[in-house]
């Protein structure tokens, strides 16, 4: 199977099998969402990971998930599927605050980042309040 087809197969596998992914093969890409307005993890927030197809310049959905009680979403992508390129994490911040009975200035947050060395680990957290957010590259 060509390398490109293998990557596509891995992406589909990741999107379908997120819940069953073994914790013994941790995702090279992680996130952590913190509610800085309340001083708590941001639990039950919908999020999605996308990869920019360089030939068509369109975003391909890789994974959808929801943060756990700790504000984390452990199975974003497998090591095999994690190739260099442009990625986007989208966080459903508006829905999150609406579920808490509050409004949010940001209906969603998209963080677009470039991976050149896919052998490293990347931590893309989101520190969020109703009127502010921060992100940084961790490892």
């Amino acid at each position: 199977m060509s390398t490109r087809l293998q990557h596509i197969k891995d992406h589909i596998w990741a999107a379908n099998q997120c819940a069953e992914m073994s914790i013994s093969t941790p995702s090279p890409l992680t996130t952590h969402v913190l509610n800085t307005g309340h001083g708590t993890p941001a639990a039950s927030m919908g999020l999605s990971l996308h990869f920019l197809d360089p030939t068509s310049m369109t975003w391909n959905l890789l994974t959808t998930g929801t943060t756990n009680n700790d504000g984390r979403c452990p199975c974003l992508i497998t090591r095999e599927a994690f190739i260099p390129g442009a990625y986007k994490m989208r966080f459903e911040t508006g829905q999150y605050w609406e579920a808490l009975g509050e409004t949010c200035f940001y209906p969603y947050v998209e963080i677009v980042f470039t991976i050149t060395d896919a052998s490293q680990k990347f931590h893309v957290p989101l520190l969020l309040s109703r009127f502010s957010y921060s992100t940084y590259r961790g490892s």
Partner: protein
Amino acid sequence: MAAPTPGGPLTTHVLNTADGVPGAHIDLSVHRLDPKLVLWNLITLGSTDEHGRCSGLITKEAFTAGMYKIRFETGQYWENLGQTSFYPYVEIVFTITDLDQTFHLPLLLSRYAYTTYRGR
């Protein structure tokens, strides 16, 4: 009724927090979401000045309620400084409901981190 601000109802300020300087000469664009077509319409193209600011982002007349996006060409900025950056660009999407207010959306930026907040 709030007094009209010199910069208009929507302003921004980009700061390079890594070097402790304004984020000067950064290209940016303002877009409004067409709610029927679910497409982004380009409203304004601009560039920050030497102070990291960009005036005239939108007129009071054009500033209707809805969903907006400011896109900052941050990757190009760092490339012009001879450096790489984790983020090829930064887009901040926000919702405007109360048109009597003014909105100041700064971007505090380094090569590996950024922060934004809603100011007045």
